[in-house]
């Protein structure tokens, strides 16, 4: 895939015809012409067997929203037997300027034995979790899920106040008091190696 360096364009400028190019991100189509919908640099990417694609490279992506399927980092605010409320602070690797609210329901925490979940043994307020957005949810919050091995708690403090180390996928241990606490731990590469 070869990319050509392009010129600076602003929204509304015509980029090409639909007969010669296909429309990529940051563009829209009107009456068989491709127009820019962002202020950025025009980029033409040649694709094998298809028309070359025009896309606009935006200089920043800080106005991302939690889209369905993205993995987000969230901080647990409150826990209740049916669901826990979280604050989404990062989308992927991009920290947000203003957080969004999310909910992890009891049935979305694990993939197996969903009805036997005790929420307080999975998350506690103050934990940082990796979760996946499964739905836009209701007006108050997005719906998230941690029903995969690589999702779950990545940071938790023990009752004594020290950062805990995972000892299994359901337990974390405080290095200071050596007491174990129950959590739904994420299978993150950092801990496996």
């Amino acid at each position, binding site marked *: 895939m070869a990319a050509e360096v392009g010129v600076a364009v602003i*929204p509304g400028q015509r980029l090409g015809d639909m007969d010669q190019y296909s429309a990529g991100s940051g563009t829209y189509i009107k009456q068989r012409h491709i*127009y820019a*919908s962002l202020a950025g640099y025009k980029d033409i990417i040649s694709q094998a067997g298809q028309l070359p694609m025009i896309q606009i490279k*935006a200089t920043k992506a800080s106005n991302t*929203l939690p889209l369905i399927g993205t993995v987000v980092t969230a901080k647990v605010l409150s826990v209740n037997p049916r669901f826990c409320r979280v604050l989404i602070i990062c989308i992927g690797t991009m920290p947000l300027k*203003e957080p969004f609210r999310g909910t992890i329901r009891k049935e979305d925490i694990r993939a197996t034995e969903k009805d036997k979940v005790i929420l307080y043994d999975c998350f506690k307020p103050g934990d940082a979790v990796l979760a996946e957005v499964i739905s836009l949810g209701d007006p108050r919050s997005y719906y998230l899920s941690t029903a995969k091995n690589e999702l779950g708690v990545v940071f938790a403090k023990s009752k004594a106040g020290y950062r805990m180390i995972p000892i299994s996928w359901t337990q974390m241990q405080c290095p200071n008091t050596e007491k174990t606490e129950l959590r739904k731990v994420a299978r993150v590469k950092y801990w496996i190696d």
Partner: protein
Amino acid sequence: MPIHRNRIAGPEDTEPIENQECQTAILPNGDRHDNRKLDQIRPIFCRAGAVSQAVGSAYIELANTKIICAVYGPREVANKHEFNIQATLSCELKFATFSCQRRRRHIQDSQEKEYSQIVVQALEPVIRLDKYPKSQIDIFITVLQNDGSVLASAITAASIAIADSGIEMFDVAVGCCLRRIENLSLIDPTYLEEEGHLNNESEDDVVVNANITIALLPSLNQVSALIMNGELDGNPTQKIINDCLEGCMRIYPVVQECLTKRLQEKALRN
């Protein structure tokens, strides 16, 4: 602070000092009071990225009219009872208390609320709201100095700020204002030309007297807002609208250059 209602108003048949006498719209040599031709727009300065803490921002100056605009979003909707599959656009336009000839209130008055609604109406068809479900885009416009054409420049500033913020748009909306007095069309009027009592050839009885603001989408060649105050005759209306659209087209290259320069600045920083 409460308004002083016990100020003495003066005898009944007196007038406040601020009421100006009727002035001629143009000087004897055919130029306007600030030595412009009838169809001449004031020099424009605009800069994107003026407010560093906002997601997108713009500052625009048309000689003495100075407007700053900041855009925040898409962010979480403040009203938690509505679910919108599209983004909600809201605008708050405020004249700074020192911006006009008479001091303005701290709280938004009806004119500012009306202008805010017009800016939303002008920009709603332009922004790709369907790309940002369940979120809110807020535009904050502050008029630092009012010397006419405020609504038109506010629309232009808001478009530049939104383009700067990386929110997808179909086109930029460019605003231009025109004052019609009898058979004279004054493009981009100053405050005196907009609000003052003007006459033409020393006739006090002016029949055709209107102020038109148009927001044009230059690339799509569509009008997203048209506001008229006053009285216009049917016959020259088409020509008046065309003159105003031409004014918008002349402002468009300035907007293009402003955004292009901002892109180069951002590229150099990275």
